[in-house]
């Protein structure tokens, strides 16, 4: 399975085109959690029950109803090798949870990888739509349409008071987790980030690292998502997120302008040093490469650097992850070897951009 199409390319097709505010917003994601009536949630399901879930859900998106959304392919997790799973996680196409604990787990992906449907994750069904830039409304329209197709074929666990019933009490109600991935280097540099993030928490949103729960924010990339799923309509959740993210974009823009006005020389020096180091270093740890790629992204947006294009930087963010490096340069690698190959990849990609 190592020649899997989904794990060969670092960038999903959807990431190649920008979407709005793409210099700050990397992507918008909708995730809808649903469960089937009567069957126990994956946490308690027996092998036969997981199989039954698969039997009910898998054919839905290979039928005619889904043809409007492109052609879909089903990948069973226990048929994938460890490295392919890792790469799918690094591309945000499956959750670490599905990759690590996938009893009867599967993912259904469309061609451009903008739709990813997980089966037997924490819930029986998790529909995920990823769009580039700030497109939360558009991503919701797609996700809810896919939800409707499933609902046409299966009976969801639904309660008129509690809404869609989920395994974790934090998802009950709408089952909707709407999130936006943002790059906020100027707010970090000007030490405003903590103030902004705590304000975000006060309006029912939460901030995490880019690989979800428990992960650290690397390269100044943050994931902002709704915390509340019960007692608000999907529309309210999405509009709240949209409006908060729009304000954060505004703050980030102001901070960037101020950085340029107050310390243009220092910021230019920092960005160009990062470009130099990425283009010539022989060993590069992930944390440093994420930080320096963040500098490059800022440099391109501020006009301090002419290249590389943002899509190349997005691609490098994925390709420099451990799974992808191993996929490209060989399965077995020590941490030091990974750092060497990461440097090699960065040199080769960025060196040609000078």
């Amino acid at each position, binding site marked *: 399975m190592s020649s899997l199409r989904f794990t060969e390319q670092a960038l999903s097709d959807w990431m190649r085109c920008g979407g709005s505010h793409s210099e700050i917003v990397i992507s918008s994601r909708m995730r809808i959690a649903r469960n089937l009536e009567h069957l126990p949630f994956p946490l308690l399901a027996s092998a036969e029950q997981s199989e039954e879930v698969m039997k009910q859900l898998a054919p839905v998106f290979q039928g005619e109803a889904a043809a409007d959304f492109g052609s879909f392919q089903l990948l069973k997790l226990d048929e994938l090798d460890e490295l392919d799973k890792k790469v799918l996680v690094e591309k945000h196409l499956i959750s670490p949870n599905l990759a690590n604990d996938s009893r009867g787990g599967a993912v259904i992906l469309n061609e451009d990888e903008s739709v990813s449907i997980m089966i037997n994750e924490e819930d029986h069904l998790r529909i995920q739509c990823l769009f580039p830039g700030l497109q939360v409304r558009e991503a919701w329209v797609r996700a809810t349409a896919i939800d409707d197709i499933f609902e046409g074929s299966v009976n969801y666990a639904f*309660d008129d008071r509690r809404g869609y019933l989920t395994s*974790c009490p*934090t998802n009950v109600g*709408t089952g909707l987790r709407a999130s936006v991935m943002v790059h906020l280097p100027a707010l970090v540099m000007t030490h405003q980030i903590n103030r902004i993030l705590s304000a975000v928490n006060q309006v029912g949103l939460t901030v995490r690292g880019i690989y979800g729960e428990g992960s650290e924010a690397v390269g100044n990339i943050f994931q902002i998502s709704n915390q509340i799923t*019960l007692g608000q309509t999907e529309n309210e959740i999405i509009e709240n997120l949209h409006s908060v993210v729009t304000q954060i974009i505004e703050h980030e823009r102001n901070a960037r302008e101020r950085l340029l006005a107050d310390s243009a020389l220092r910021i230019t020096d920092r960005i160009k040093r990062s470009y130099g180091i990425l283009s010539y270093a022989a060993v590069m740890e992930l944390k440093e490469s994420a930080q320096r790629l963040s500098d490059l992204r800022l440099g391109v947006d501020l006009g301090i650097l002419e290249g590389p294009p943002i899509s190349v930087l997005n691609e490098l963010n994925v390709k420099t992850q451990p799974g992808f490096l191993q996929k490209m340069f060989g399965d077995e690698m020590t941490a030091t070897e990974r750092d060497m190959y990461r440097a090699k990849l960065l040199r080769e990609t960025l060196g040609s951009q000078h």
Partner: protein
Amino acid sequence: MLCQECGVKPATLHFTKIVNGEKTEFHICESCAREKGELIPGTAGGFSIHSLLSGLLDLEGAGKEKNAAAQTVQGLRCENCGMTYSQFSKLGRFGCSSCYKYFDSTLDPLFRRVHGSTAHVGKLPKRAGAQIMCKRKIDELKQELQQSIAEEEFETAAELRDQIRKLEKEMPQE
């Protein structure tokens, strides 16, 4: 600073653990932390939303009031999947959708804490939705009816009562 466990690798994790009011500081490297299985906030596989939730749910831990009510709650059991309330409070996750019904009496405070609310107002599944939509409308009208009785607007109240009766008759059956 070197890791206080292995003394070889540099300590990258620094945290304070408080157990029964006793404070202990730790400076360890990541591999030792993983081996020891320490629950470290912000690291994958350690602290999770589920452990936080189970903290919220643990009635015994909360007040140490082993009164009859708490005992009854701990004894609740989902007849569909077999999960007990005490398992639920440890795992922070339901076993199946019927758990919501069997643990219902305990859920309002939990949902209020997590979501600030206890009732769903969002999307409805289309098939089951027609009936729910009708129920919601009836509930709304009933509230208006109470209001109009309180304000002694009996003519409006009578109209509302008729509307409610009509909707109840028309309500699609499951």
